[in-house]
């Protein structure tokens, strides 16, 4: 193993290469640009190709093309680019084309602040395209080291589920320098818990079975056997068809191949002080979880019965962690509250669900401690100069 003091961009690049990624196409956007730069340097050294597209929509389509030709591909962007992936995302979901998409979140809406972290794409990663009738997989690391692991995992899941998988980070993860350990061989990868899945090959004409089954090779162009892929509702052979029954089967597969195999990723969460039935559970993902974890340690030291639950797989939403009837606090890098709505939905009826947002910077530990204390004492949370819904 090799150790580096490097950025999350470096870690993600090395993770992708370890997972077998040999194709990257992107479009420069802060704070994901350095990831493209790192790929442009590293991929040719590994016999891979880096391309720069004319826009984000093209970037993901170019990746889709490479994947359609049998290469493991990745693209990376930030929120304003991720929304432009909506069109190719639909194609990749419908055609069941494996692909990894990294989103380094910044403050929005729209272009917002380019160099400040944000978590405004929680729902966008669940509904990254039009039309509905699909399920999405999103992984959210909270450090550079974990970003490497999650990118490897994203490639693994994307191959097995035959679909694009999003890795949702933020500016602090991709740009921040941290101590990073890179495995140098397969044994070391296994030791670090990295799992990989090779690209397999479906020449066609079979496109897929109407079932929830995994590990079906994606259609690959080039053999002449009659493989077909299109954005229309497919038949079992990949023909376009305008029949509702065929679409029912298609939608069933896109939704339930993910929902019926949640066991593959429902271990991706982190628990802290959750074994003694805490009076308050602080829910978070990504970089805010690092501050939350420290604040929860402090709160425990001060005798507050607080636990922390950090989500790594965001979609499908891990409802199973919200069975306990207690108080919940969702801590997020946005002011509108996104994760909190899912917590509210997943938590038992009449659970108290609260929200603490920050915008462009992380919440402070004193702020968090004060909030914990008030919630535990049943005192109302102080609102700042903007109106929030009463959670």
């Amino acid at each position, binding site marked *: 193993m090799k150790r580096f003091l490097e950025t999350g961009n470096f870690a993600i690049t090395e993770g992708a290469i370890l997972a077998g990624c040999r*194709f990257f*196409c992107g479009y420069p956007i802060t704070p994901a640009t350095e990831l493209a730069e790192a790929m442009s340097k590293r*991929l*040719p*050294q*590994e*016999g*891979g*190709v880096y*391309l720069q*597209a*004319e*826009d984000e*929509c*093209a970037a993901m*389509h*170019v*990746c*889709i*093309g*490479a*994947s*359609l*030709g*049998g*290469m493991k*591909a990745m693209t990376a962007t930030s929120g304003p680019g991720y929304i432009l992936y909506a*069109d*190719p995302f*639909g*194609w990749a979901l419908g*055609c069941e084309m494996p692909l990894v998409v990294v989103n380094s979140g910044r403050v929005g809406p729209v272009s917002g602040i380019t160099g400040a972290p944000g978590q405004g794409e929680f729902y966008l990663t669940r509904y990254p395209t039009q039309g509905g009738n699909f399920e999405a997989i999103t992984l959210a690391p909270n450090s550079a080291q974990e970003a490497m692991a999650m990118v490897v995992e994203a490639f693994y899941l994307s191959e097995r589920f035959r679909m694009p998988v999003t890795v949702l980070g933020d500016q602090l993860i991709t740009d921040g320098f941290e101590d990073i350990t890179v495995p140098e061989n397969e044994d070391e990868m296994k030791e670090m818990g990295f799992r990989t899945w090779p690209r397999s090959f479906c020449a*066609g004409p079979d496109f897929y079975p109407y079932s929830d089954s995994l590990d079906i090779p994606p259609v690959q*162009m*080039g*053999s*002449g*056997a*009659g*493989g*077909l*892929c*299109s*954005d*229309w509702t497919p038949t079992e052979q*990949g*023909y*376009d068809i305008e029949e509702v029954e065929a679409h029912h089967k298609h939608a069933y597969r896109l939704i339930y191949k993910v929902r019926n195999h949640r066991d593959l990723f429902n271990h991706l969460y982190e628990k802290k002080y959750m074994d003694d039935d805490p009076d308050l559970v602080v829910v978070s993902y990504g970089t805010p979880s690092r501050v939350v974890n420290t604040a929860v340690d402090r709160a425990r030291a001060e005798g507050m019965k607080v636990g922390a639950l950090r989500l790594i797989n965001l979609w499908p939403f891990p409802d199973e962690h919200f069975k306990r009837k207690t108080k919940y606090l969702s801590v997020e890098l946005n002011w509108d509250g996104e994760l909190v709505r899912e917590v509210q939905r997943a938590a038992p009826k009449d659970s108290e669900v609260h929200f603490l947002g920050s915008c462009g910077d992380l919440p402070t530990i004193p702020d968090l401690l004060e909030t914990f204390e008030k919630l535990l004492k049943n005192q109302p949370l102080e609102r700042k100069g903007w109106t929030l819904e009463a959670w």
Partner: protein
Amino acid sequence: MQYSSATLIDKYLRTRKIPSTACSGCGLGINHKVVVQAINELDLKVNDIIWGTSIGCAGRQTFATWQGDGFAGTHGRVYAIARGLRIALPPEKKIICTVGDGDAFGIGLMHLIHSARSNVDMTVIVNDNLGYQSTGGQFGFTTPQGAHTDSSPYGMFEHNLMSEGMDVMHILKGAGATFLARHVAMDGQRAVESVKRAILNPGFSLVHMPYPCPTNFASRELGSRNQVNIYRWIKERAKPLEEADENTVWATGVWHDATGSRPEFSEHVWGAVNKIRKTGAL
């Protein structure tokens, strides 16, 4: 060299999709046959070609007609997909995309320009039905000036890519395309010869092929779905490049042949990658 449709269908096409669901009298079938005939005359096999299509009448009617591998892209994006695919495919495989004018010259123009810039080895056949016909008949960016459509009831008066001395071919030539030709559907063997040259060009080739749409374009502009009228209307406005005059809308023939003048995209990219891998620099 003429071939009966039946011979070409047996050899190259999926009978399940032939005949297509195109309206009767539609000129798209003629263009489609021109492409398959060119493939046949070049003696290419089913597994030599990956067939890409797009949206609209042209995309929908030609998708899954090829016996071999095929894909359809969303609105205007097939050129970007083809670019990625080109990198992954062995160089001897050919990519042929049959698309519509809205897809190529409207929503996909930027991707098309960048495919030309990169000189990606693919052949784009733009089947131009003079507007947006699968959505009912609106004007497009190559609709002849003054034409009446559902969205130009007073006659198409916007500046477009085929008016006032402008021609979309100039844009593509400027962008770096290495083979460009135009033929109307009734050009017969002249069109086949151009498509053959386009397929053989190891770089970005585009053949613009306006064709008659009796159902929507003709019924709005000529007031009749009678296919004879629209075929004649198009023929009257098309002339070989060397004979073109001020009344010519479609100057036909080979517009630009720069075969071999620029390195092909995937060869260029892989060459650079291999060099960097070996020596650490370019």
